[in-house]
């Protein structure tokens, strides 16, 4: 690749990363580089400095925090997929992560990198949104926690400022819930045309609660709140969940692109949401 010239810094700790970022005019954080590298290669990004978080081992790994799982931002996709705590308490994240790109990308790409990149066609933002994850951020003014519902602002845009580093993401342990991520793409190793992250809590023969996050149905990941409402108390049957999923595209603004026009995406969102809910409900 032949990018434009930039400086490269590999900080030794988060504080240094924050300081370097804050002092730069147009910095870019590299957290695995699987999205940033193409942007540099296409000369779509002209950072003056690339701050590589690859040396920050304290940002790697999964910790059990009681009600929450705390996953370091620099934990690779492959590590997430194979982590026993994730498998036990947040299997939806592992399942969705397994659909990200190909093995080479999953060995370098990171959870934090994916989420901070905030590509609405990426698989993990919708999962974080559906699970009400919490984003831990270190910045010039100290640390703060941002709920998923506030983190994603627009296309490739989050609440992170220059000088902010996403250090970890906390996922609530949802006991009694079951999950499914349904990804629909044209080739196996591609971005989702539409993706659906579904979580269901059953109460015997009916659905007590459901949560649905949508991938690539707007400029940010979207919660399908109407579907969640419609699911409440319905019988745990495929036809009922498919019916509840009919409002999956309500409030979305899906893109028109080469792989799909908006009307097709709306249709897919309805069909796939029904299927994802049914699969999550064990049907």
């Amino acid at each position, binding site marked *: 690749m032949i990018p434009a010239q930039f400086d490269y810094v590999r900080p030794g700790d988060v504080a240094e990363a924050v300081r370097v970022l804050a002092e730069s005019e147009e910095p870019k954080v590299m957290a695995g580089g699987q999205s940033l590298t193409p942007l540099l290669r*296409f000369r779509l990004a002209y950072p003056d400095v690339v701050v590589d978080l690859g040396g920050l081992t304290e940002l790697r790994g999964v910790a059990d925090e009681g009600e929450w799982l705390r996953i370091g931002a620099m934990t690779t996709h492959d590590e997430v997929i194979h982590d026993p705590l994730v498998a036990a308490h947040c299997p939806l994240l592992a399942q969705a992560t397994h659909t990200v790109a190909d093995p080479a990308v999953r060995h370098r790409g990171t959870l934090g990198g994916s989420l901070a990149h905030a590509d609405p066609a990426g698989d993990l933002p919708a999962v974080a949104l559906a699970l009400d994850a919490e984003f831990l951020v270190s910045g010039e003014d100290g640390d703060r926690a941002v709920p998923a519902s506030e983190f994603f602002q627009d296309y490739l845009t989050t609440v992170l400022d220059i000088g902010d580093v996403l250090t970890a993401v906390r996922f609530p342990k949802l006991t009694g819930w079951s999950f499914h991520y349904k990804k629909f793409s044209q*080739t196996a190793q591609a971005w989702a045309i539409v993706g659906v992250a579904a979580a269901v809590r059953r109460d015997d023969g009916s659905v007590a609660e459901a949560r649905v996050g949508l991938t690539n149905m707007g400029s940010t990941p979207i919660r399908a709140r109407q579907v969640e409402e419609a699911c409440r108390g319905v019988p745990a049957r495929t036809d009922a969940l498919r019916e509840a999923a009919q409002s999956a595209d309500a409030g979305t603004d899906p893109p028109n692109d*080469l*792989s*799909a*026009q908006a009307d097709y995406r709306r249709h897919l969102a309805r069909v796939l949401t029904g299927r994802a809910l049914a699969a999550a409900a064990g049907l």
Partner: protein
Amino acid sequence: MTMAPESGTDQVGSPRLRKEDARLITGQTEWTDNIQQTGMLHVAFLRSPHAHARITSVDTSAAMQQPGVVAAYSGADFADEQGSLPCAWPVTEDMLLPAHPPMAVDEVRYVGEAVACVVARDAYSAADALEALDVEFEPLPAVIDMESALAEDTPLVHEGSGQGQGSNKAFEWPMAVGDVDSAFEGADIVLTRRYHQQRLIPAAMEPRSVVCRPDGDAFTLWSATQVPHIVRLMLAMTTGIPEHKIRVIAPDVGGGFGSKLQVTAEEVLALLLARRLRKPVKWTETRTEGFQTTHHGRDQIQDVSIAADSDGRIRGLKVDLLADMGAYMMLVTPGVPILGAFMFPGIYKMDAYSFHCTGVFTTKMPTDAYRGAGRPEATYAIERIVTELADEIGMDPMELRRRNWITHDEFPYTGIAGLTYDSGNYEAATDRAVELFDYDGLRAEQRRRRESGDPVQLGIGISTYTEMCGLAPSRVLGQLSYGAGGWENAAVRMLPTGKVEVVTGTSPHGQGHVTSWSQIVADQLGVPFEDVEVLHGDTRVAPKGMDTYGSRSLVVGGTAVVQACDRVLDKARRLAAHMMEANEDDLEFSDGRFTVRGTERPSTSLQEVALAAFAAHDLPEGAEASLDADATFDPENFSYPHGTHLCAVEVDTETGQVSLRSYTAVDDVGTVINPSIVDGQVHGGLAQGIAQALFEEAVYDTDGNLVTSTMADYTVPTAADLPDFTLDRTTTPATTNPLGAKGVGEAGTIASTPAVVGAVVDALRPFGVRDMRMPCTPQRVWRAVAEAREAGRSEGGQR
């Protein structure tokens, strides 16, 4: 158990591991972009952002001030020496052949056309300095689709050059055999279909790259090319630099699929820049540059009519073709659809056939050879329409094929398009494929799913294809106005120690010639496989050759190797007879040793003969001190691989997703030298044919921008998108070459596209779907189902 052969015999037919692979997979390779030269400069091109525009000014002065920049040039700076990129196949005498300057001078005609260049001390400086080049354009109207291009009062692609003669029509090429009118008038059924062969991007794994070094008054040029010999000849003819002063090397080359069967602007300009600057220069394309400016494939509109009796007998076929040339004629651009002209009748007997092709200029990247080159397009059309004919008649599509194909006892058979198929056994390949595929079982499942209204429908697609390969008899190429012959050359050299050097004029770029040629030579000369070295891809090392494309290398080049081996043995026999004090006629040669027939006298090995020839102490009268020989083989006929491919797909009618459930390919490629290599060729070929059916399309917007200019947008499938293929072979040796080989490089691609699309249409037939545009993306399939359902409703629910 059988013992591994100690001698070289029985190598042909053995799945030897490839000699190439240990080096390739451990990175011990020499790709063109890896080549470093002292003082080497790097070239970057500024490319047109317009599909069609007049160049009003080029200012290189600011770029010249950039750090590291050595030179910057516009097309005008090379106007006197760059010539016009060659087209070797003027298919008609009156074909429009507009000038094609390597770097545009006055006008650009596709997005990506080179307009100016920067030469710098490193690739980064060159890329940075491009942004300082100041080029002004006056946009002209883009001409994107072929039918609009042919309409009256359409802007002309080549008006500015004064060569357009008032039309975007480049040529018309007609052909008719038999009484077409009466075949159609007398037929019970006439079916007409329009098929679109979408434009494809070859996307070889290794990007194009070229390095050129001045050596005194001569030049060495490395290029990621399939055709070093053609490049050398054409560079000489284009630039006027004498042919003997140009050496072209194709080092390790990572795939081509026809896209490196080309003489490119960048090769010409690398040569001219090296001459002007007296320094080695390098250029390597980025992937997006490659997508925009490495020639594309396909892009035809086919209007096809078939006439048949109600019992399914085919009477005639009419094909009216629009072929998109793009903006210029490149090496064989116009010849690609003409090659297809001979393949539309496929394996079927009929009374009459007509073909008419109109070549059309548009403001897009030129098209040219892409795996199959004309033959996949033709095979698609005939295999699709034959299936539709069966449906129209209410006959099983396999039964309709059986009623019309050339039967095994009819070979050799001269078909309606004039080709003489030397050999084939369509019955055997089909019977085997039907058995492996479980055709009857899948048809039964299909019926069940249709009856139960399963949202996931099953479809079965059939392709009983043949192709013409082994390009090509020089005499035929001459009749088709091609600018060169189709022979191939080989040399076999016995070294004093008995080792063997084989020089081939073919130029492998992934095909494994080093391995296959070693197997052939090991058997011919009775020497160990390991003792054979195969040299290729360098016009100084392998001075004569016609290179690699069109499934020709084994059929033509392999035959030349066999002939050269025969000549080596003729020389060796004479010397051996002298050494053994025997009559030549009494010598037998097997397993690498000469023996005197009917005696117990000690044998003499070929290695001993080679050493004696080298020493030359005691040669027979008039013999030379060498066992070396070369041979040039020019085939009398094409070769005709064939086979039966069966595909089963599941189509999710709610989402439009197509899943390949199973794929059976039974190919008859004649004698197989290395089964693993042949399997690999079939696998890759299937992947590319399936890619056209389901995944790939080069899309230009109405302004002429290539929208699919990255790997993210141009969806090349990977192994993860493909099923496990069920492969088998029947073997009906070709009668037209001593190996009996037919070629396999393109078979999978040619066969698979209609099988897959046929399966998708078959799955959706209950909904009233009769055709699908390629690629059959989920969205297209979903819309087709939705539209068919809508049409069904508006017909009052008659379906």
